[in-house]
């Protein structure tokens, strides 16, 4: 079990509509959308150093031909970089100066386990991976009473990054299904909902395991009506119906546009554990499709918020548990590696390429690699990226939330 499922309460006296409270807590709401690329993203296929001679020799089937990459210039070390050819929307964001790509992010002695790795990126605490989530710790700094919709998880179960001590973040994969059904109608149905609300009003103090279920039920019943306002959101652009990631972002956009008070959203898109048949280059290849899912969802979200003048209030920040091995394996895939790339998108993001690309020379003495030249070595500690977000976007002291000072060396993308 991940640590710290919340002990928080909403009393019956709490106002039914809490946006006023939410506004009072933060003025104009700034939104943070945490994006998880689950499985370990192969950053060298997302952001390719396409002129590195070892890129092609170490990845004979996976390297993107230099004629296919979407060129976005060179980084501070002069390495030419290109986005995966399917990332057309992201290139548009880059060109508009609203996409930052932070290269070689990671941490010392990086875990190659999916599960420990995800815990570490979620807690920002490699020495205690069962700590609360870093975004959860941020929410714990908000003054009480905290709006129960301050966080919104679009996946089915609570991600570790949102685990907080004092805030129970609701999981709302589909606003349309977030409703209280009844075998009856009319006054009978209303009586049931009233009874359910009253039954769960007082979590038992002597049974903390049971109290957690009470609190979840309370949070669900207390947020239903506001979430219902998002269910009818259509957006100014089409979000692909068969793309669950895009649909999750549509709900996030709806929550932002309706102004229901949510500060932190979590969205996830999976399938990045590409050990075999990674197929980077063919249209409808595995990695090509991953990029399609990502790009279609992000572009719809970006355009929708831009159209409605809300992009300046929004920051999307990605993470993935690790990058992948540089040399492709015998299955035309890649095994677990280390350093990777983080994405930041938003109206106030200073777009561009941050950090330097690895040299892919397999010489064990190559300082940009580790594991005998096998994996990308981190250059920017991911916690310094979080520090920048906490200090400059969320307006809190990152040193307290991150349990250490990671400001030095933080890339200036905000």
């Amino acid at each position, binding site marked *: 079990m991940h640590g710290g499922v919340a002990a928080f309460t909403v009393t019956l006296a709490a106002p039914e509509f809490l946006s006023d409270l939410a506004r009072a807590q933060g003025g104009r709401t700034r939104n943070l959308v945490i994006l998880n690329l689950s*499985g370990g993203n192969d950053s060298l296929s997302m952001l390719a150093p396409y002129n590195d001679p070892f890129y092609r020799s170490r990845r004979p089937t996976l390297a993107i031909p230099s004629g296919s990459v979407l060129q976005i210039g060179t980084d501070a070390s002069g390495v030419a970089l290109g986005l995966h050819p399917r990332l057309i929307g992201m290139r548009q964001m880059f060109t508009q100066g609203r996409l930052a790509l932070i290269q070689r992010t990671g941490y010392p002695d990086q875990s190659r386990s999916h599960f420990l790795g995800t815990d570490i990126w979620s807690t920002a605490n490699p020495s205690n991976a069962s700590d609360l989530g870093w975004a959860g710790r941020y929410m714990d700094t908000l003054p009480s009473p905290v709006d129960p919709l301050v966080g919104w998880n679009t996946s089915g179960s609570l991600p570790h990054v949102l685990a907080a001590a004092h805030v129970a973040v609701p999981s709302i994969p589909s606003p349309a299904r977030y409703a209280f059904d009844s075998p009856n109608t009319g006054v009978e149905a209303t009586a049931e909902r009233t009874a359910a609300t009253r039954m769960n009003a007082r979590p038992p103090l002597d049974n903390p395991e049971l109290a957690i279920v009470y609190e979840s039920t309370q949070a669900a019943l207390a947020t239903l009506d506001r979430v219902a306002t998002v269910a009818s959101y259509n957006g100014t652009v089409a979000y692909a119906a068969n793309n669950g990631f895009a649909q999750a972002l549509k709900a996030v956009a709806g929550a932002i546009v309706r102004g229901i008070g949510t500060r932190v959203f979590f969205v996830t898109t999976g399938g990045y*554990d590409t050990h075999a048949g990674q197929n980077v280059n063919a249209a409808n290849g595995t990695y090509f499709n991953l990029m399609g899912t990502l790009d279609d969802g992000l572009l719809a979200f970006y355009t929708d918020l831009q159209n409605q003048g809300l992009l300046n209030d929004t920051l999307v920040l990605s993470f993935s548990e690790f990058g992948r091995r540089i040399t492709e394996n015998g*299955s035309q895939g890649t095994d677990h590696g280390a350093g990777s790339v983080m994405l930041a998108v938003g109206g106030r993001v200073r777009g561009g390429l941050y950090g330097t690309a690895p040299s892919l020379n397999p010489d064990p003495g190559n300082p940009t690699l580790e594991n005998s030249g096998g994996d990308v070595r981190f250059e920017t500690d991911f916690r310094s990226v979080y520090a920048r977000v906490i200090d400059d976007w969320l307006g809190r002291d990152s040193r307290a939330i991150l349990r250490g000072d990671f400001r030095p060396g933080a890339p200036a993308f905000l």
Partner: protein
Amino acid sequence: MPLAVEPQIEHLLRRAGFGARADEAELYQKYSVNQAVEYLLNYEAIPDDVDSHIGQAGYAGMTTAGPFSPQSRIADARQRWLFRMLHTNRPLQEKMTLFWHNHFATGYTKIAGLTNAAEGARYMAAKPSEDPGGVRGQLEMLRDNALGNFQNILIEIAKDTAMLYWLDGRTNTRAQPQENFGREIMELFTRGVGYYTESDVYAAARVFTGWNLTRPGSAADGSQHFAFTYNANQHDTAAKTFSFPIYADGGKTIPARSAGAGMQDGFDFIAGLVASPETGRYLANKLYRFFVSESGQAPASFVARVGGMFLRTRGDMKAVMREVLLSPEFWSSDAYFARYSWPVEFVIRTLKDVGWSGFSLGDTLTPLSNMGLVLYDPPDVAGWDTGALWFSTGAMLARMNFASALASNQKFRLASAAKPYAKTPDDLLAWATDALVAVPFDRSVLAELSAYLTATGPWTGSDAQLQAKVPGLMHLIAGSAEYQLL
């Protein structure tokens, strides 16, 4: 509605099974606790005929697109497994199969994506008797070995077609070893994270080089299928050294072998993993959380006893489970209702308690997905996030809404079943809380339930009132926090 049975037997059937149907309650009532445990463990003595009742009157229904085809359609396979959980007379076999499914968590979606939907269902769920090529799907293998020998299960899993797709072993070759299975067999299936090194991962990958797939059978009669083969040409014959002992003498190196004899590497490695005290501890902790309690850590005494039995018997799961089910920890009053129900446990127990007559198991599939559990499709190889993590707000609403849908479906039957006990609201409440056993309700919660019964008008006990209030009450109780714990 089940008869009231001894609290101990109810506890045992909630944990070692999926709750109690009326006939189960009646049967187990005749047994002492020890007899009941032995009856559950020695299920080979009970006829395995549950599948033969599919489609018969008196049993839950199915919703299928065309003829019922669990060997090639995953929605049908899901319904068959739910049918077994509901109607089996071997509840512990199904419960252990669920435990193993989460332990060796393999996802249909990836396999179907690499093959096709029918092949994905086949490699996960086919019974040899219904498959033209005699394919035994992964879950059938686990079911056959539910209380078998763990070492044997590991060997079968390493050779399992679905697993060879899922963790990419099918492409593990001498020139370029594939690490996915080699890592997870140590991290998730045996020793646990922190008890292996990265160089162990590389060595483990090399151990299983050549454990690939072949394709016997003929396309014409449908017998063609992918199956395990040891491909000697693709085996890395060099020695493999680990950071932990593989052999009883403490040896950490699997010796260089000829390609022809190289499959022995895998058997040696698996035997070494099963003989590791770390594996005994890892499984004992996992069994504790699944069968005994999720409140706090497994006591050292439990881990020592259960892990010790695992090591002594080299993974005899029947002996290990006897140790678990007869442990003082299992029977401690602290363990009662100290386990969060999984969505399938909640759904099956609700069906047993509320009723299934005229209900289709097809109507559980979307609710289960909303609760966070799609059978044959765990989120990743670590299995589901269990415990309190089942209870996100969205998932809790999905549970309440399933309770509502079932109560609505059973409306008329519930109203007439309750009628003799519905003289007063409190009589009805006593009947309902007796039928749906949960953490005892606080008096204030009982007062709210009682108030609900008269919230829209005075109590008359009329048919119309019962048809509204009895389903409403069942909805509230099955959707209560108290009912979510086992």
